[in-house]
């Protein structure tokens, strides 16, 4: 099973809440309404891929946890 590593650039995040709505349980907003992953390393999850592809500020980075290669967002 492929594992992904999620990171969110808090400076780029514009608090749209898009990721929290698309992939509930995978992302959480902090006190400043900035997003971050609930768990940084997860089993591959299409909702998380959708959340990264839909992020208006391209703040979500997804890489293969084992190889470090970027995950295709299409």
């Amino acid at each position, binding site marked *: 099973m492929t594992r992904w590593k999620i990171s969110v650039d808090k400076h*780029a995040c*514009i*608090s*749209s*809440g*898009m990721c*929290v*709505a*698309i992939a*509930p349980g995978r992302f959480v907003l902090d006190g*400043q*309404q900035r997003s971050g992953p609930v768990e940084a390393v997860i089993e591959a999850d299409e909702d998380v891929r*959708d959340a990264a*592809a*839909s*992020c*208006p*500020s*391209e703040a979500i980075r997804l890489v293969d946890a084992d190889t470090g290669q970027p995950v295709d967002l299409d």
Partner: protein
Amino acid sequence: MTVESSPVKFTPALPGQPAADIRTISGDRPVFRAELPDGRIVWLVSGYENVRQVMIDQRFSRALAVAPGQARPGVEMFAAGSINGMDPPEHTRLRKLVASAFTVRRIDALRPRVASIVGELIDAMLDGPQPADLVTGFSLPLPTQVICEMLGVPAADLEQFHAWSDVIIGDWQRDGDEIMTALAELYGYFGALIAVRRARPAGDLMSALIAARDDADRLSEEELTAMCCTLLIGGHETTANEINLSLLLLFDHPGEAAKLRADPGLIPGAVEELLRCARLGNLPPARMTREDVAIGGVVIPAGEQVMPLIGTANKDPLVFSDPGRFDVSRDAASHLTFGAGVHHCLGAQLARVELQEAFRGLIGRLPGLRLAVPASELEFKPGMAIHSLRELPVRWDEP
């Protein structure tokens, strides 16, 4: 937890009038049942956290709220066939097709083009007579030109599609047949335009959407047409009136306007404060509960219409100190004017860039910009979805 019985009659304030204090109407309850002037019974939700929850929590469905058979104004009939009236996963599939064209990075690359359109419109105003109508001379053509160029729609057709758009998103008491006729005509217009682009693709968003349909079958023909209509209407009605209402706010607060003239570096922050304070519409897109949901101390049963009152979130004292004060130097960026969750405004960054460049141009090049008539003489079009000014007559000091 209680489930309430009798709805409170709720008539939204007219455009240009101060908003009613919702806590007075509701007896200080953040969530309560209300009867709207069109007879709909809805749960009104106020306060920052509650409003945010309704928009992010997928137990509140957009698709159910706009489904055929539901009582809905024209703007919701329009939403029913579009991305604005869908839930995940259908919504996500369509949103991903257009998301990349509207990212912060891609829109920032359009800023020089937006600034150049602003410059041309102000040149024309300076060459023309005073007073001038800012609606026809500036606030409407700016976003219209920008979205037409992005989408690949001839801006020359502006008056035609504006007439349809007025019928569709305008007066919510309007006859349903009239709205459906205008919708059908707008869809027909786009059907013809899509056929032209299909034969001769260009570098615009419409061509990219056609390719997503024809090459990869990622959306249906009807979804393609609906997407183009939504982008066109969503891309100009809101921004045009946000410019108008923002200017009215600045005219009412000359001290704040003077700060922007003295330091244009304050403009991006001021745009967030204007977005927080200007009341662009009264009634937000409704949601419907999929199941019983506890919120704000009550349980809303399944199958009920819910409206998150964004204005109350933007004036929540827990989030914005002294929320009634208009202050261009405060940090207002956490306002919920663009919504939140999957329906967070696709064009948020485009609107920000357009508003920033608009005020940079208007404040920088039209010194002493002011209303040419008393504010009480301004007329709004009927309708509750967007507060749309018919005309905004202005004067400025000759250089």
